[in-house]
Every structure is written in C-alpha cells, then in structure tokens.
C-alpha cells in the first residue's frame, strides 16, 4: 500500500478491531450494569464513564505510564512477551479504554428501555438467562446496539490525544489518519491534510446518515 493511504488504512483497521472487541466486552458489562442491584452500581457507572471526563491526553499519559516497561503491569506484560506501547496493539488497547463509555452507555440504556416483563416472560417460559439474553433481549434492542457500534467506531476514528501518547507517530505502525492530519498541517502540506480530513468527515457523516436511516427502518418494521 502506498505510504499516502497507509494512515487511513490504519485508522479504519484500528476502529474496526476496537469496535468489535469492545462490543463483546461492552455487551456483557452493559447487561451487568443495567440489571445489578449492587449498592456499588454508582461506582461502576462512574468508572465506565471516566474516559468521558478525562482529557484524552491525560488518559493517554496514564495508559502510557501504566504500560511502560518500568511499571509493574508493564513488567508483568513484558514477562509474557507483550508490549503495549508504541505499537498497534497498544493503540487497540488504548482505543478500547478511550471509547468504553461510547459502547457501554447506549447498551445500558437499551437494556433498561426494555420492559422488565419481556425478560421475565422468557423465564416463565422455561428459558435460561443466556437464551433470554440472545433470543429475546438483544433482538429487541437493535437500535441501541447500532448506536453503540457506530458511536464507538466514529469516536475511535477521530481520536488523537490518546493515540499520540501511546503510539507516537511511527509511519505504517501507529501513524493513524488524525495524526497524519496534524503532521501534514505542521509541515504546511495542507493538500494532504485536507485530503485526510475530507475522507474522515465523509465517512463519519455517511455512517451517521446510515444510522438514522436504519433506526427509522427498525422502528417502522416493528410497528408495521
């Protein structure tokens, strides 16, 4: 692939992987948060939302420190041969932490918006929690799932601070489109910056329109 398209490829690869991984983690955490009766629920919800309130650079800095070979966790990871700073895997982990609330919050709302009787009806029909989860709950909250996936994807595409802190600016490895835009602007290469910006905004807007279109379709499908 040409060096010129590489940052875009990295951005979309990162967003896709982060979104997929986060979906499978997020859906179970959201289920737990939506239905737990624990007194500590407020604390769990606050934890999930930390990335929303922390400046991305700060979050990136903490992740960098946490994963750096001098920290305990970094040492532990190194022992198992895992390195998470200044490489693509590090970006994935950072993106997952950064976009966490964008995946979990819509899913929690989705679960909570379902009538309680839906879940209970499935139990009274002899279904296990797992069957109820996959066959009743998830299919009845498609719009929330779609919102969660799209928000996470678009949000990951646009991240800058976290990525820069954890990954740096290594071409072909961690130099994603947002960093390439910054880089090109600094080098006064506005043509290139403009190109990357245009691709990112076109993709984000198209996805947004697609979501509203699909949501409308889900709703009218359920009603008609």
């Amino acid at each position, binding site marked *: 692939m040409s060096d010129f398209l590489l940052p875009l490829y990295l951005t979309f690869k990162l967003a896709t992987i982060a979104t997929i991984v986060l979906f499978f983690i997020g859906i179970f955490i959201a289920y737990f948060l939506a239905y737990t009766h624990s007194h500590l629920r407020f604390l769990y919800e606050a934890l999930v939302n930390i990335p929303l309130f922390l400046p991305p650079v700060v979050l990136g800095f903490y992740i960098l420190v946490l994963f750096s070979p001098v920290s305990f966790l970094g040492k532990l990871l190194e022992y198992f041969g895992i390195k998470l700073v200044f490489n693509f895997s590090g970006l994935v982990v950072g993106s997952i932490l950064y976009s966490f609330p964008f995946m979990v919050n819509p899913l929690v709302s989705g679960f909570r918006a379902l009538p309680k009787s839906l879940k*209970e*009806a499935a*139990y009274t029909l002899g279904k296990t929690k797992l069957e109820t989860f996959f066959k009743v709950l998830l299919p009845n909250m498609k719009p929330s799932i779609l919102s969660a996936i799209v928000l996470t994807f678009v949000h990951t595409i646009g991240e800058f601070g976290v990525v820069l802190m954890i990954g740096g600016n290594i071409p072909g490895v961690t130099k994603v489109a947002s960093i390439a835009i910054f880089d090109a602007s600094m080098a006064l290469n506005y043509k290139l910056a403009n190109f990357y910006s245009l691709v990112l905004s076109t993709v984000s807007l198209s996805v947004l329109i697609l979501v509203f279109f699909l949501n409308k379709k889900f709703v009218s499908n359920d009603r*008609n």
Partner: protein
Amino acid sequence: MIEIKLKKKLFSFELNVDLNTNNGNFVSIFGPSGAGKTTLLRLIAGLDKPDWGYIRVDDEVWFSSKDNINVPVRLRKIGFVFQDYALFENMSVGKNIEFAIESKKDLNVVDELLELVHLKEYKNQKISLLSGGQKQRLALVRALVRKPKLLLLDEPMSALDLSLRVSLQDELLFLQKKFNITSIMVSHDISEVAKLSDYVFFINNGKITKHGKPQAIFDIDANNVNIFGTVIDKKPSELLGILKVLIGNSIIHLPVSKEQFSQLSIGDKIVITAKAFNFSLKKVLFD
C-alpha cells in the same frame, strides 16, 4: 393441592398471606390497587423472593425459607400472563408460541393452539399488527404451551375495553376448563372476579381479610339479578341522596336513603340487586 404461606416486607407494609386451593380451581386475588396483589403473584412465580414461608404445588416444594429452597422461575411449572402481555416483538405470532415449546417434536401443537384462539391466519404476522384482544389471547395461549400446573394472570383484561373484556372472559374460562389448569388471577374488577372465580381471596394492605366463594364474598344471591358498579359521585338532596354509579360503560343516577348515602363514599364498589321477575325490562335498539 396448592399451599402458599408467605411473608414479604414491602415499602409501606408487610405482605402476609396464607392461601390454599385445590387443583383445577380458578382462584382470584381481589383488592384495591397497592394492596400487594401483583407482588403476591410474582412471589408465587418466583420473580420476587419472599422473606419467609413456603410454596408447595402438589408434592413439589417451590419455595421454603426453612429448607432454603428457591426453585428458579424457569423450573417452576407456571404460565404467566403479564398485564402488558410481554409478547416478543422480534418474533412472529407463531414464533412466540414456538419459542415456548421445549422439544422439536411438539411443534405441531403451534397450529392447534393458534386455532384455539382464532389466530391461525395470523401465524406469520408481526406482533405489532395484532389488536389488543388478539395480543391478549396470544399471551394467554403462549402461557399454556408448557402445560403448566399453575396459570398466573396479572390483571389480564385491564387494558381492554368492556365489550372485548366480556368475550375474552368467556374464552379464558373455556381454556381454563379445557386444560383443567389451576389458575390464580389478580384483578380489581368485581364483575370479572365474580364471573370467573371458584374462590376469592380479598386482600388489603398485604393481608387476606376475607375469603370464600364469590357469592359469599360479594354477598350475591344467585336467584336475583346482580349489577356491579362503582360510585363515582354523590349529590345530597333534601329527603334522600343521589348516587352517580358507573356500571360498565354506562352511568346511572341512583336515589338512595339518607342512611345509605352517608355510608357510601366515592370509589366504593356496590352491587345493585333486583329481585328476579320483579323488574321491568325492554329491548332497546342499538346502532
């Protein structure tokens, strides 16, 4: 034989009930809103956990605080009809029934059950296309798929208009007798309770204050004509009082003695009794 003895601390009072019934009976739990009726039904189903007591259905123990037994909802042989029907909108009418079927070889009963409630031609329809009455019938028949030992109904008709309610009551009674399923219904509609029940438990503030056959509980003389209504307004006049009474969809003005007038308040349920053969009636033309 179903034996239930439970205690559960609720927000403002304690639910404390003791009720037994024989198999095949249609039992109603009747009382004002907020009396603990729905909670009691949920405790029997296992959707909520009692603080103390036991639930025995035939020789199975579903709950016992003494022996630390609490059988999960899905393993209790119940059918539950929710107030909002709780139909699965992601499935067709037929799939809602199919979902409840345990073994693939029983799939042929889907058509049979749908036929029973006149929904066969709607088998592949979406839930949202059904009318309120059809949803109610589907919820009812779905609750019967697993041949439960106990059918629990939470205000099953409350969302329907009167004429529909009356015809669905007949259908409910027909299905209950056909499958011979012991049923417990929660309701605050006297005429419904009087019509359907073999036995009534009157519950108020978490306690059963009265129980018996509906005739005894509501003081119904089977030889007379009984009309159930609710007092919705009172107007005193010089010699007597005028009650405005809601009966089904109609409102009537009922002159009563001063004494009766003072004893009744707005919201009270009353039964108006007319002696058989001793009232005038005339056919009216409708529509």
